[in-house]
């Protein structure tokens, strides 16, 4: 409420005079499940990891470079390139970091998931969170968690195979602003392999509009495998390179940060990721064997 803030502003001054009450004992909380405030359940996450492990190890044969750059404690914003009709990079990064570092990763994604029955619920239980700046701030600043975000948004996975490894615009630099506000570093991760795991050969804009989806793709997987291709990935070799953490050295919790600084930082991160992707592609001999 626009005018409401004025009531609040007065409130701040008045609150000072209130007597401080002693810390109360923790309240009786008869919870039955382990679903946290973000909708994540460690049990379901554990189950998801067990089911996903064969894909991670046998199908994609994931290899990490510089995993030690991801901190074992404290908040950090992981930022990666995004690809594949149903992006395979998000579960790979979450799985890898959780298996290796034994700490949870919360994956930010478009709100649209929340509106989908079953998918939305499963996605939340498995560690997905709607990409609202307020959610990201809480996770990073107050709970010091690892948060994964794809600044390209749906423009990344929605691109055709012919445009592979060409990074899209990094949104409006919102991820930099959140990291500044939360006082955490941004850790870029270059992902190679996701593009070839489910390449899009054709997109239909009319159908996308009809279903209210960001894109409706025809993938090479569907052409080769038929209906199975909707969910089956090609066994492309995954290589992930963690780049040096980017610290912004600005005070956290400011109301505003310099827009030009935000855009510059976001662009620098994008260029760095793009350069590293080209470098990794130069070294790659085979899509399937790396």
């Amino acid at each position, binding site marked *: 409420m626009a005018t*409401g803030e004025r009531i609040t502003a007065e409130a701040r001054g008045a609150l000072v005079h209130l*007597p401080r009450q002693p810390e109360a004992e923790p309240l009786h909380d008869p919870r039955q*499940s382990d679903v946290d405030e973000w909708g994540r359940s460690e049990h379901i996450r554990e189950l998801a990891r067990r089911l996903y492990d064969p894909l991670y190890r046998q199908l994609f044969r994931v290899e990490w470079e510089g995993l030690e750059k991801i901190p074992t404690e404290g908040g950090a914003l992981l930022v990666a390139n995004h690809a594949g009709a149903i992006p395979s990079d998000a579960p790979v990064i979450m799985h890898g970091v959780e298996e290796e570092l034994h700490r949870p990763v919360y994956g930010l994604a478009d709100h649209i998931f929340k509106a989908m029955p079953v998918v939305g619920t499963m996605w939340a239980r498995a560690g997905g969170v709607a990409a609202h700046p307020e959610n990201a701030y809480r996770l990073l600043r107050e709970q010091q968690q690892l948060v994964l975000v794809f600044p390209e948004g749906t423009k990344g996975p929605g691109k055709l195979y012919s445009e592979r490894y060409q990074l899209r615009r990094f949104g409006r630099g919102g991820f930099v602003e959140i990291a500044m506000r939360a006082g955490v570093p941004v850790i870029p991760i270059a992902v190679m392999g996701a593009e070839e795991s489910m390449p899009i050969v054709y997109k239909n804009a009319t159908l996308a509009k009809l279903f209210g989806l960001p894109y409706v793709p025809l993938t090479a997987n569907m052409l080769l495998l038929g209906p199975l291709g909707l969910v089956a990935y090609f066994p492309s070799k995954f290589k992930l390179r963690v780049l040096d953490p980017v610290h912004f050295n600005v005070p956290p919790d400011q109301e505003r940060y310099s827009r030009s600084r935000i855009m510059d930082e976001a662009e620098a991160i994008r260029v760095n990721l793009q350069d590293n992707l080209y470098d990794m592609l130069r070294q790659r001999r085979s899509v399937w064997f790396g």
Partner: protein
Amino acid sequence: MGRRVLITGLGTFWGGRLAQALEKDPEVDIIIGLDTQEPRVELERTEYVKADQSYSILSRIVQATQVDTILHTFLIVDSTRMSGRALHEINVIGTLNLLAAAGAAGSPVRQVAVKSSTLVYGSSWEDPVWFREEMTRTHSAKTRVERSLLEAESYLHDFAEDNPHVVVTLLRFSNVLGTDIITPTSKALQLPVVPSILGFDPLVQFVEEDDVIRCLEFVMREQVPGIYNVAGDGRLPWSEVASICGKRMWPLPPVFTGLAAGTLNRLGIELPPETLDLMRYGRGVDNRRLKRAGFQYRYTSAGAVESFARASRLRKAVGDSRPAYRYEREVENFFRRSPAVVKNE
């Protein structure tokens, strides 16, 4: 000198409960309760004044009784209880007239506390996990009850600006569960199977009814100004709520849900659109500002559900154990005014 308090909606659940609680407070000298209907709980010293729902006699009452505090509990948040038009009359026009009387020249009123609802934040797929008080809803309000609450709140903002000498408190209560309160949610949870929406298991939040009353008392006693969310700690999945209540779920289809709810409505099971939204997307509000102001909750969200589940089990076993009460003017007047009544003070 003690406080002189005016409560709106004395005949409603909250008004009656609040008056009972304030009667025990020695700091409160006078309690006046306003409503169109008679009180439904036994009251010792609260004075009941019958008024029409738009409070046309209010400025006279305020002047005559010199009340210094108005506790406005008469905002309807359950849209199944009346038509949209009646709801608009009570929530919007009622609040408008109340604030006009409270802000009249020479008014003795020094605090106004309003019981609003977290319905003002709505419930949608684009919502953050936690709403803070200064945040606004992500989609415009579709239902009449939400629109009327937003309008009532905007009148309160204007009032606060025009009357800087008055402590204005706006409380937004989350969905209430407890031993006695009846809401669309509590009714849904008392059905043999709990309705849900197929494929959705949203995180919901509750506040226990005793915490609601304690909070109203708290802001009055401490004269805390500002906007506050009032809700128990934590959010829990709707399926867990059903399970704490010992119930199974009956899923409604995720498409044409309104149509399915319409059919249920004919069978007497009322699920208003705002409840259906909640069963799809849930809602969470940050309760930390009120805690920082010094309020201590007695129940978490799950605790409120448990308190409700226990009361339901008792009711199921022995029926409603509370004796029925009927307000009779002559009897009440006799006990309050007759010199024959011996008062132990």
